[in-house]
Structure formats: structure tokens, C-alpha cells
């Protein structure tokens, strides 16, 4: 499959798997920022809503000294053949050509879940229950992000609320609307070890422009040709191979998440 070049003015996220400690701060920060409700009592790791999900991956005792690692898994923001866009009957998913961000419009979503079936990264979540916050806690919701209701699919959008706020602020300062703005998603801001970096390769914020071209950079399932805008870094060969599905896990239970 032909590989396309990601525009240097579009946003990319670079996650250093060797620096991720699995603390889950990104998951909590993401949920707070994007008004994702606490888990329903019946929710499980398969039916919950976690736009950012950290999974533990084991080497199955075949690793090069590192027995396991943590991989934060947001929506991979596919640049090519975006599977969720192709299958959505409602045009509820769109790729913003300027930023490269794949947007989910919950107002249009009918909840058919075709996009969930199509997503090879399992990065989309269906709202099985109405969002509920304990009494009073709804006062602490982020005013920049509308809560979604039961029956729609949602996913990471690189903190679109923050992007819009950054755009508004840039416009106030006279920046042209075509120029990419600098902002940081909640997960990147919360990460204690700075394992998550974000920006445009053109502006090279936090060095992402250099990191995506480093020898330790890789993307998930590259053979599908979806050209994700989320890059990972690891010096460990087995992690890179695992992400590319070039190496089988020894047993089914080795990948938690």
C-alpha cells in the first residue's frame, strides 16, 4: 500500500513507551477535560468509555531484558483510508484537512457502531449508559466540551476544546487562521514523565518533528496503511515488532487492556 506523507502542519502525538509508567494520569486528565462521566456500575474494560487507555503489553519472556511495557492508546487519527470515516452512514466522522484531526460529531451519530467494528485500534467507545455524575460534581465539568448522551460513539479528538480555545486566542493576537496554533492536549499536560509529546512537525513543538523521524519511532499496524498520526518511541526491538504485529504473543492473556 502506498504510504502518504503526513503534512508537517498537521498535529502529531509522539508517545515514548519507554517512559510510560502506567500511572494512568493521562486517562484521568482526559476524562476530566472531555467530560467523560465516571464508570457506570456495570461498566467493564470493554464497555467503558476511555478515550485514552493505557494497556500493559508483556513480552512473553522473549523481550530484550524488558519484560513488559505500557502503551497509552488514544485514537490514532488515521491520515489515510481512515476506516471510521469510510463506514459511517451518517457522515458523523470527518477528517479536518487543516489539522489532520479525525472528528466525531456526536450530534450526527446514530449509534450503529460500524466505526467501532472498522477501527483496527479499538479506540472508539459506545455510550451504553447516559452520563451521570454524583450530585454537585456536574458543576466541575469543563465548559468547553459538551457531554454526550447514551447511544452515540465517541473517541479522542486531540482535545478539540483546547484546540478551539487556542485558535480563538491566536486570532485575538492577529495570527492567520491557516497557521497551526500551539496547544497541548490534557494527556500530554498531565503526563508526569513527559512521555507524551504533541505538536506539528513544522513548528517542532516539544521536538516532535525530530522524534517522528528517529530510528526508534514506530506506528501501530503500519501494514494496514492507515498512516496514524500517533507515533510511538521505544528502543526495545520486541516492542516495535509487537506493535507491527510481526511477532506473535506467546499466549492470549499477555496483552492486558
Amino acid at each position, binding site marked *: 500500500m502506498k504510504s502518504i506523507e503526513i503534512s508537517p502542519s498537521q498535529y502529531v502525538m509522539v508517545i515514548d513507551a519507554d*517512559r510510560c*509508567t*502506567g*500511572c*494512568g*494520569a493521562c*486517562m*484521568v486528565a482526559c*476524562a*476530566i477535560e472531555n*467530560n467523560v462521566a*465516571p*464508570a457506570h456500575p456495570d*461498566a*467493564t*474494560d470493554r464497555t*467503558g468509555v*476511555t478515550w485514552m*487507555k*493505557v*494497556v*500493559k503489553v*508483556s513480552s*512473553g519472556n522473549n523481550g530484550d*531484558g*524488558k*519484560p*513488559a511495557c*505500557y502503551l497509552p492508546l488514544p485514537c490514532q487519527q488515521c491520515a489515510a483510508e481512515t476506516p471510521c470515516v469510510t463506514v459511517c452512514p451518517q457522515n458523523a466522522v470527518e477528517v479536518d484537512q487543516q489539522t489532520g484531526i479525525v472528528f466525531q460529531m456526536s*450530534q450526527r*451519530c*446514530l449509534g450503529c457502531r460500524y466505526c467501532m467494528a472498522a477501527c483496527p485500534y479499538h479506540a472508539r467507545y459506545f455510550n451504553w449508559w*447516559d*452520563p451521570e*455524575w*454524583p*450530585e*454537585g*460534581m*456536574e*458543576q*466541575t*465539568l*469543563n*465548559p468547553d466540551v*459538551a457531554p*454526550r*448522551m447514551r*447511544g452515540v460513539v465517541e473517541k479522542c479528538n486531540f482535545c478539540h476544546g483546547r484546540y478551539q480555545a487556542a485558535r480563538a486566542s491566536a486570532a485575538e493576537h492577529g495570527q492567520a487562521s491557516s497557521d497551526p496554533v500551539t496547544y497541548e492536549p490534557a494527556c500530554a*499536560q*498531565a*503526563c*508526569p*514523565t*513527559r512521555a507524551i509529546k504533541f505538536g506539528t512537525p513544522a513548528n517542532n513543538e516539544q521536538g516532535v518533528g525530530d522524534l517522528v523521524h528517529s530510528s526508534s519511532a514506530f506506528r501501530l499496524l503500519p501494514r494496514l496503511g492507515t498512516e496514524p498520526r500517533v507515533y510511538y518511541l521505544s528502543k526495545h526491538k520486541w516492542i516495535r515488532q509487537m506493535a507491527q504485529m510481526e511477532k506473535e504473543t506467546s*499466549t492470549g*492473556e*499477555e496483552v*492486558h*487492556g
Partner: protein
Amino acid sequence: MSSALSRRNILKLAGGSALGFLLSPMPWKMLDDISIWTQNWSWIPKLRRGPVTHKYTSCTLCPNACRVNARMISETPVSLWGAPDPCVGHSYLCSVGLAGHHLAYHPSRVRNAHRFTATENGISSEQLSVEDAIAHIAKILHNIHVRPEEGEFALFDCRPHGMVSDIQQIFLSHVLGARYIVPDHHEGRFMRALMEMTEDPGQSYGLDFSRTRTLLSFGVSLFEGWGISPLVVEQFRSRREEFNIIQIDHHQSSSSIVADTHIAIKPGTEMALALGLAHVIVGERLYDPASAARAVDLKRNKPFSFMDLTRRFPPGRVASVTGIPEDVIVRTAREFASNRPATAIADDFAPAELIHSVWILNHLVGATGKNGSVVQKRPLPQPWKGAHRTPPTRLRNVPDHSLRLLMIDASAADTTVSWPDLRRKMRAENATIVLCSPYRPKRGESVDYLIPIHAPYETVRANPSGEYVATSAFQISTPLWSKSEEGCETWQILQRVVSASDAMTKEEFAQLEPEELLRLQCDAIFNSKRGTIHHPNNDETIPLGSVLSSGDFYATLMEGAAWSDDGVATSTNGRLFLMGKSTSSAQRFAESVLAFDNAGIDSNPSFPLLVVPVGEDVAARFGHVSPILSKIYQESDLKPRSRFAYLHHETARRFKLAAEQRVIIHSPHGATEAIVRCDSSVRPDTVQLSVSQLDAISPTRPRIINSYGGRVYTDQPIFVRIERARS
């Protein structure tokens, strides 16, 4: 031409209309509109609108006192973020801290006092005013005052730390016969153990990893929770390449996954490894010559010989005890001793002899009293330095069935109180437990009265730095809500109870408000003329000496600034005591080492599997955290689950067990049910169980510390056998 309307025409019209309707934009528009309407049902929360502001404060959820930048909408916090902290050096919050502003709305939050009564149908709860509850409790205290034979009055401080604990101790010293009880283990125990091995009076110690090249961790949670972890994370973030982490852990923890080297060890044998490492360092003369010269008992034989003790732990023998290959032990000792500055650390809850052994390693490699490792620091200036205080009593030292009235200060979020232990200390009849907490008691927490206190960020609180930081620091945690709900702090309730009972001998502190106490603390710091103030608004640091008055200093702290002390010129001449400064501590250490050496850890053929205890969702189960933490604990598989027994595939095969099978785990002390999960990271011949499963099979209650870090210790190894459960 006929114009008669036939039935066929009508059907054609109806069919054409239906088809035309479907082909028109109308149904799709309706679908869209319905989708939009359904986004706005009345039960979907409406978002708050208003000006966006930022407020700086500090987190009180754990003793680390992290700096917080709160994003506010119309005077209500909507998110919390880390702010640059000059003391620890980091600028992040942990998962629990990120959601700290939710705690005011926790589902178990209470606003009124309650009285609980045991009935035939269980526990009944009756709501009453705080004044009435205080009057009832004061009456009980009065009776104790009049008839001391009825039992004692005590306050249990779940987290003894800082100014509030000082006030409570001083206040209780004016109440006749009152006890001040603290948990058996709490933060800072590891650092305080050093005081028994050095001769620098009046100084305390902190950890400075800024130049550390090798960190040897004996099972410490390095990246989660509180205590040492913020210091480690900061170094990991800023200079990962030159910060070599060796994690010794009995299971595959998050720390062991991220560390450069994970040494998997048999549970309960860590002390043998530490002494084995010391054996290699001494035997190969890898120790720091200057430190060896300071260690007065390195080569002395009386009264207890350090050399004799380490001689019992040659690498070959340690390998058989710990399950670690001999070459790994030797290599680790050489790496630790050669790649310096090096520091070894252990958890506050680790056994005393392990903590002692770890400090021996630090002494040998010259970590103690060196910049970049273990540094001296001055304690926080105290406003009540010479005041008389009730000495703290550890819970285990309180005589059983001696307490008539117990007040529990549960203002700390990380309150992992052992309720059965507390109950045992109460008299069998007419005993009263009063819980001062923002939250309703959990199942199994049998209390008689509940008095609500402020939740985090609802009131002004003193926030001194944790035990581990290299220099003392002080911040004020200012409230995030401008108009807090009615409420007070535990020490204020204590004062009101004591005042109403006539049990007090002196009226000191009785009239002071929290702000006045904070001012006294600020005066003490200001008068010391030491240290610097960092203001997060402009990220500027100024010397305290440039501040004009104590009032200005207080106002600056209230705006979110932090004071940190000056560093201390570390003395490197002080003597070190490898076995312990006093004869009794040396004897205690020697005896516990010899006891381990003689007994070892042996399994029973009837109970062949050794339990590896792990913390699972302990923060959520035993403490109070934001419900949003369910993203981690419930909606992901990131933390081990409480109902599973994790086994290696080979172990499962040996016992003819399969994944997802229901099993019963038997120990000599009881049995518990679990579901089998196979995991290649679990050591063969061990079973990994969560802390909540241990209650049924452990002879003593497991100890939990750093609940978010999820570390669990048991007093002795637990051996079990596993059988399939009958369907």
C-alpha cells in the same frame, strides 16, 4: 376522458408520496434533529459559564504537598494541574490529585452529624446536629473525667504530620488522662530509621537524587503514589539516561517494568539480599573509604560484629534463599558500589530489619550525608517549640479494651485504618467511637458518631513538605471555593468537645481560628529569616529576607507561594553506626537477622504456594478518591483486580487449573475464593493475591501504605494451596 378517482389512483398517490418523502431531505433532517434533541435531554448536565481564572494552591491529599494550578469558572474549579514546585522540583499531579476537586462531591460525602446504633436488622443511622453530637460526646468525656475507671479518652491521628498534629498534641496535654494515638507505621519511617545509625543530633535527613546515578529500590513504588515517588519521577523525567534504576520486587510491578533492571525476588527474603550485597561490597573492598572510616563498627566485634553478621550471607547462600542467581547478586553489588552516587531505598512499611540493612548499604557506598544522595536538612521552624505535648502512642502499644471514647481524625484522604485493631482497643461495653470525616463510613467501619469535617480544598490548611524532600518547605492550601459549606476541622471539634465537658485544665488554643494558627506558623518561619519564596504567578524566587513583614509573608503564601528552606552544609565527619547507635538497637537488629538466618522461609508440603501480596484498587476500596478514578480501576485492566488469583502457567498446569476457573485458596488460617488468571510474569510456585483477599487467609492483618502506589506488606509469609471450587 374519465376523471373518476379509482382505488388504484389513491394507492398510487399514497405510494408515490411515501417514496417521495423518503427521497426528500425531510427524513434525514428529522434524524439529524432527533439526534440533536437527544443531546439535550434535561438530564444531560448543563455546563457552567463564566470568566476563566486560575488559582494557585497546594494539594493536601498526601504529605507531598504538590503545587496546584486550578482552572476556575465562576469561582468553581473545573480542573487541577500541577504547577512548578521549587521544593520537589516537579510540576505534575498524580491521578488522584488531578481529580482532587471532585472530592467535595464524593457520593459518600456527608453534611450532617450522624449517630449509628446497632439493631437487630443491622446498623441504623440517625441524623442530628453537630452541636447535639458534640453535647453527647462531651457528656461521655465528662463521665470519663469523673470516673476514670470507666476507661480512657484518646484521639487517633490517622496522619500525624505538621502543624495540626502539633496542636492536637499540645491541646491533649491539657486534657486529663487523654491519649494521642498514631498508626503503627506512617510516612517517614524509613528516613527516621537513619537517626538510629548516625550521630548528628538535631538534624533530620532528606533525599536528594539530583546527582544520583544508581537507585537501588527494595520494592518501593517509584512512580505511583506518594513518599519517595515524586522525587524519583522528577529525575526520571529530567535525566533519564543517567539515572539507573534497579528494582528489587517480588512481582512485576509498574516500577519493575519501567526500571532498567528488575530483580525478581522471593517474597520476604529482601533482607537476605541486602546483607548479601553488603557481603560482596565488604568482601571485594568496594566500599567508600571515607564512609568506612566513619563507620565505627565496621570492623569492631563488640558487642555485635557486623562482619560476623554479613559473613553469614555469602552470594551462593543468598542465591538459594532469594531465588536470585549468584552472578546477578555479585553483579548488582558491584554496579551499586561502583556507579556512584548511589542510593538504596525501602518502603516505610518494610520490616525494620530490612530498612536497617538498606541503610547499611547506603553507609557502605558513602551515600549518607552526601549531596546528591542522603542530605541533612533543618526541621520546619516551630511556633510552639517548648510547649508541653502528649507523647504519641502507637496503636499496637495501646492496651486492649482500655478506651472508652475514641475520636478519629480521618481528614487525610489516604486513611487506611485497621478497624478490627481499633475495635480491639475499645472497652467491651459502652465504648464510643467518633469518626471526624467528610465521608460516610465504609462497610466494616463501625462507628457510633460521625461528625462531618471539611473536604480537601474547602478550607485553609497548613501544608508542610513531606519527609523525603531535601529541604523543609511550607505552603498554605487555600480553599478553592470562596464560600465553603458549614464545617470545621477535627481539632476544632476536639476543642469544643473538651470545652463542653469541663475536662480541660487550661484554655490554651481554645479561641484560636485556623487562620490565626497559620499566622503563628508564618511568624515562626519569618523570624527564622531563612529560605526563599517561590511565586508561581511569575515563576520568581525571592529570599525571605526581602519580605518586609510577617503579614506580607502570610499574604504571599495565601496567594499560592511556597517557602523552602536553605540547604544545609552537610557534615561528612559524623560517625556512622552500621549495627545501630544504641546497644539495644544493635541487639534487636542482630537478633532479627539471626532469627531469619535460623528459620528462613520454608513452605509446608500441605501449603506449597507462597502468596505474593499486591495492592490492587486499594485507594478506591479503602480510601476516598474521585469516582473518575474508575477509568483506571474499573474500565481498564491496568491494576490487578481484587477477585483474581494470578499464577504462572506452569504452576496452573501443575495444579491442574485453567484460566478463568473458580478456585478456593486455603491457608492454615482460613480460605477465600478467587478466579484463576495465568500470567507469565508471576514467579512459579507463588500466587499473586490482592490485599482484600488476604484478610481471610492471613494470620495477621496486612499493612497497606501509599494506597495509591498499592504496596502491601504482611508480617510473615503466607503459604497456601489451591483447589478447584465445586460448582
